[in-house]
């Protein structure tokens, strides 16, 4: 029983880590809470659904394209809109991303309706039964890919020029600018990374969860809670927070039932903010 909860929680957690990593990056570097994030994830899911429905593509195959498209959208939004309000007060940036979310969510509702859809690819790994444990292999694969992408982000931030530039901008945008870094372009790249990851996470989630514009709120809440759990500004924190939240929700589902699972994350969020607003790992600066 415990092992099953562990498995379920880790699978969930891997997906959550990926949802949150891009969100945390944007928040940590740009100080923008992207209220559009949840809808972007759902859009990624729909992208995967379309690719499956009309071209028979498995979400894993469609993944790179979806990630690229999401990143492109993000770049456009940052360059065209958000770069104007980067230094603005919290209220302004929240309201702008909220407005964008309204537009995007409305568009999804118009385009796809509110009904839940699922992706049922013909190629499926099935379920492994080891001992008494049921391991849904498609989900496990999705979670692994999700964690891999999160790891890629970490690598990017550590090893690539862009990554170091992002970290520099995060630490001191003015100083970075004086060192020759085109700060506004880095902002665009950062936001694009965040949205690209969101879309990619959505594509993977489409394999696991039903798809509907109504899901965007829950994904956004997940992203928040993971950031607060794991600490802002750290990919490792997002990964750790994601895994923790996955485990917590897995336990909550067992004891309280599925409908309480999502509210668990919001209650946890409030509790965490009340006790340790800097998260369990604190603000360490992006690694």
């Amino acid at each position, binding site marked *: 029983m415990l092992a099953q909860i562990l498995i379920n929680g880790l699978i969930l957690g891997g997906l959550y880590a990926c949802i949150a990593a891009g969100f945390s990056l944007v*928040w940590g570097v740009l*100080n923008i*809470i992207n209220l559009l994030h949840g809808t972007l994830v759902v859009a990624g899911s729909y992208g995967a659904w379309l690719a499956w429905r009309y071209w028979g593509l498995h979400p894993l195959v469609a993944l790179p394209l979806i990630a690229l498209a999401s990143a492109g959208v993000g770049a456009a939004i940052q360059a065209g*809109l958000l770069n*104007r*309000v980067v230094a*603005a*007060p*919290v*209220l*302004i940036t*929240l*309201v*702008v991303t*909220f*407005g*964008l*979310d*309204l*537009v*995007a*969510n*409305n*568009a999804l*509702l*118009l385009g796809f309706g509110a009904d839940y859809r699922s992706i049922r690819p013909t190629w499926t790994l099935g379920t492994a039964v080891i001992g008494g444990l049921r391991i849904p292999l498609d989900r496990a694969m999705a979670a692994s890919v999700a964690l891999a992408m999160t790891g890629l982000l970490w690598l990017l931030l550590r090893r690539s020029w862009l990554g170091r530039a992002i970290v520099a901008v995060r630490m001191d945008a003015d100083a970075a600018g004086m060192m020759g870094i085109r700060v506004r372009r880095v902002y665009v790249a950062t936001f694009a990374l965040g949205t690209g990851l969101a879309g990619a996470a959505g594509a993977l989630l489409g394999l696991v969860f039903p798809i509907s514009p109504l899901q965007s*709120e829950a994904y956004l*809440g997940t992203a*928040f809670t993971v950031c*607060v759990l794991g600490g802002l500004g750290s990919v490792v924190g997002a990964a750790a927070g994601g895994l923790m939240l996955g485990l917590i929700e897995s336990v909550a589902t067992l004891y309280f039932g599925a*409908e*309480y699972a*999502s*509210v668990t994350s*919001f*209650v946890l*969020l*409030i509790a965490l*903010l*009340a006790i340790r*607003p800097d998260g369990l790992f604190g603000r360490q600066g992006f690694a």
Partner: protein
Amino acid sequence: MRRLAAGMALLLAAAALLPIVGGPYALRIGMMLAMYISLASSWNLLGGMAGYPSFATAAFFGVGAYTGALLQGAGGPLPLAWAAGGVASALVAFVVGWVVLPLRGHYFAIASLAVVIVLRQIATNWTDLTGGGMGLNLPVLALGPEAQARMIYAAQAVVAVLATLVSVVVAGGRLGFSLRCIKQNETAAGMLGLNTRAAKATAFVLSGAIVGPAGAIYASSVSYIEPGDVFDILLTVEPIIMTMLGGVGTVFGPLLGAGLFLLLEQTVWASFLSVHAAVLGVLVVVLALFLPDGVLGRFRRARA
């Protein structure tokens, strides 16, 4: 000061005349305007004057609506039910404020939003008390539709007038000064001897006390509420947009913004129902990018 008094007198006269000269449509518009004014003025206390962007307005509205509905359902007189809505919301504001007001910036905003979501979930799951997702029916009022419309309008109008009075008193006095100091430099204000927690809590509780009755009256007017209606995220954001439209931190900004918003709602969006949210979203983005100080703010800067 004289212009202020004259303007208020004019508005009050118009408000009092409305039930007499206006038909049912005018009464409905008046009721909505009054409710919007209450919500926007309430948000402005903490969000506008102190600079703490609260997303908790819907929490107060919902608590007020359910409290009022339950009391009304138990046979209580309407004014009592409505007042109780205010008391309940004020209490919730006090408790929630205890937890979230020490947070700054984004964390405060997100926590206040999370409160709405959690309360909505509680209302959905506590079926015994609230009817859960199936909603709550209120006893139909023993009045004809016209008399009911007049009464509801009068009730919301009273709350709106009270809300504006609260804004005027707060803005002109010590609390408003304290909130403005907090907005500009909270640390310095504390160092100078201001109990910032108490000031913020007072503003938060006042805003809850205003929104609660508005929610309770709303419940009475629609006779059926469900969690998604009253703990609605749009409902928590729209007062922010109204206040931004009119002028954040000013007394009459929320009133002006509520009026403008209602105008837009009735003219533009009525024609675009399926894209209502998207149009609102575009408005919001344009507002935030180009008119962050609102109409009054622009007006002031033009004069200065």
